[in-house]
């Protein structure tokens, strides 16, 4: 379970980091808005107060103090909250307005903060004041309430926004975390089961289009391949053990006959000869195994050369003619008169075609004809060995390409059981295929290689 905890920790701390980042971002935004917004309001209020004061001074200059008194009184009446006025005589006596207490600052104040009593309430106000030409003192004041209200609304807005961001971020994050972990865990569980030896475990794939679906399906494909390889390997190991043990056992038997006291010289030599052949068979099998392994890994590609495949097949067919004839079969060589040039791994191709011919001579039976042909088109070259014999049942055609598979157990003494496996490996090295088809009657083996 600690493993589960650890697995969860990393995404959670990441989530916390994201939320903190969101909070910090909104705080920074607030500071910017607060400072610019505050300054704009402050400047506007100040400009308005100055303008009003100018207007009142003008009234005073042009229409006299009496009119000013009534204008100020009217201004107070129509003032919105936070706007205050005061008019004083040059001795400090209140003449009009809701500011009734005189302060010497009023004589010359440009947006000064002054604590004043308005009605019953004490307030801090921004004050613009001046002494007019007739000696009277005019004061226009603005309360700070507006600005505070603005401040407060920004603060609450910030708190609310942060709360929403945090809540939404956290819940979305947790949800995502949960979903991801759930799906990753499904894959991890499968991997764990595999690690514990259950090779058949597969992860459930819901949707192939999303990344998790793809991870899941490629994991499954990989597992499929691994299981296939392991099963193949097991089969090969078992068969290899069998295929090496049998000839070695026969060799041992022959050698004990050779050292037997009563044996004549000829018997001895025959026995040694037999043992020798068995050992050669073992070596040939091992060598074939290595060739297949090498061909399958594709390492031999650098050894490929451009050659005339038609000529190579014709030459090989000629080489195999005596064997085919001895098997009571007829060989028809049908290779083009013109060269069929492509890049191939010559030794491996020789061996592959040789194996196909050998198989025909061994398994097609007496009285049949074996036709060897080379066909080509723009992209592929096909070497076809077709006989008119008994053929191979359709359901067995895949199996015979595997290693150490012999369809007729009675014949297990001859051949390594690797013949078609080598042909298949050759096809694979040339990015082609080995197809076993029905020749109606007989078997038609098509070794198809990609032109390059």
């Amino acid at each position, binding site marked *: 379970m600690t493993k589960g905890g650890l697995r969860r920790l990393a995404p959670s701390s990441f989530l916390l980091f994201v939320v903190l980042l969101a909070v910090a971002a909104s705080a920074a935004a607030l500071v910017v808005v607060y400072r610019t917004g505050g300054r704009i309001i402050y400047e506007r209020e100040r400009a308005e107060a100055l303008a009003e004061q100018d207007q009142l001074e003008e009234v005073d200059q042009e229409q006299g103090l009496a009119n000013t008194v009534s204008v100020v009184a009217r201004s107070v009446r129509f003032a919105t909250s936070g706007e205050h006025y005061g008019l004083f005589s040059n001795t400090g006596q209140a003449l009009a307005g809701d500011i009734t207490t005189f302060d010497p600052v009023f004589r010359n104040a440009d947006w000064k903060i002054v604590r004043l009593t308005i009605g019953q309430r004490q307030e801090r106000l921004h004050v613009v004041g001046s002494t007019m030409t007739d000696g009277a003192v005019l004061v226009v004041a603005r309360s700070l309430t507006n600005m505070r209200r603005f401040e407060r609304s920004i603060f609450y807005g910030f708190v609310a926004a942060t709360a929403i961001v945090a809540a939404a971020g956290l819940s979305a994050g947790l949800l995502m975390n949960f979903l991801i972990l759930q799906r990753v865990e499904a894959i991890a569980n499968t991997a764990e089961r595999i690690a514990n030896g259950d090779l058949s475990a597969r992860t459930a794939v819901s949707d192939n289009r999303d990344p998790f679906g793809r991870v899941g399906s490629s994991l499954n494909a990989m597992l499929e391949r691994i299981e296939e390889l392991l099963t193949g390997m097991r089969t090969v190991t078992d068969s290899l053990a069998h295929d090496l043990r049998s000839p070695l056992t026969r060799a041992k038997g022959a050698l004990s006959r050779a050292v037997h006291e009563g044996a004549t010289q000829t018997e001895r030599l025959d026995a040694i000869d037999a043992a020798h052949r068995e050992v050669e068979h073992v070596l040939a099998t091992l060598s074939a195994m290595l*060739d297949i392994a090498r061909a399958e890994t594709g390492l031999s590609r650098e050894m490929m050369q451009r050659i005339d495949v038609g000529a190579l097949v014709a030459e090989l067919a000629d080489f195999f003619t005596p064997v085919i004839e001895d098997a009571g079969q007829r060989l028809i060589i049908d290779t083009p008169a013109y060269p069929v040039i492509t890049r191939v791994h010559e030794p491996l191709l020789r061996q592959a075609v040789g194996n196909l011919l050998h198989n025909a001579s061994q398994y097609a039976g007496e009285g049949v004809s074996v036709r060897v042909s080379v066909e080509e088109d723009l992209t592929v070259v096909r070497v076809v060995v077709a006989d008119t014999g008994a053929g191979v049942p359709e359901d067995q055609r895949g199996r015979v390409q595997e290693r150490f598979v012999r369809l007729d157990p009675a014949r297990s003494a001859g051949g390594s059981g690797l013949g078609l496996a080598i042909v298949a490996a050759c096809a694979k090295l040339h990015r082609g295929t080995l197809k076993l088809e029905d020749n109606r009657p007989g078997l038609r083996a098509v070794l198809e290689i990609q032109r390059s």
Partner: protein
Amino acid sequence: MNLSGRVLVVEDDIDVADYVTKGLREVGYTVEHVADGRDGLYLASSSTFDGVIMDRMLPGMDGLSVIKALRAAGVETPILILSALGQLDERVIGLRAGGDDYLTKPFGFSELHARLENLTRRRTGKSIETVLRCGDLEMDLLARKATRAGKSLDLLPREFKLLEYFLRNKDRVVTRTMLLEQVWDYRFDPHTSIIDTHISRLRKKLDETFDKPLLHTLRGVGYRLSETS
């Protein structure tokens, strides 16, 4: 037996080296043995040998590099490469590096001997011949005709090719794998009877109607074309 041959064996495996040097001395060769690639290069380039048997995996300097260095220095001594279990490519790589023949471990001494004879004599008999002979057998390479005791032999091209190889290696042991590799360029034979089949067909035409057989089978080794059995 070849009494004049002088052979250098470059092999670090003491057992294999012992087996080879003893065997070669028994059949009349003078044998030098070194276990290190550098020593091999030094000896082979400073002294004259009729043949070199070179292991692939050597301490000091690997066999292929030694061969390349020798060929680059203009040393034309025939070289037989020895290697662990041969793979299709290994042989080609070895021959491309400048080796003349390639033998896979484990090998029988007779196989090694036959190949070494083949290599060392190939050099001396380099003159261009148009007629090959063995006893009353005569082969005209230009007319592509073979006769025995004056009677024309009706040979297929593949039989002609096989007989030509035997004639060029007259009196020498020729193994099945040598035939596979050198006549048919076929490296690995899972079906050992194929060479025997070819031989028996050739023998039918060559020896059947004559008193004295020319093509002899050597048990567990191979064949020899010779007037004497």
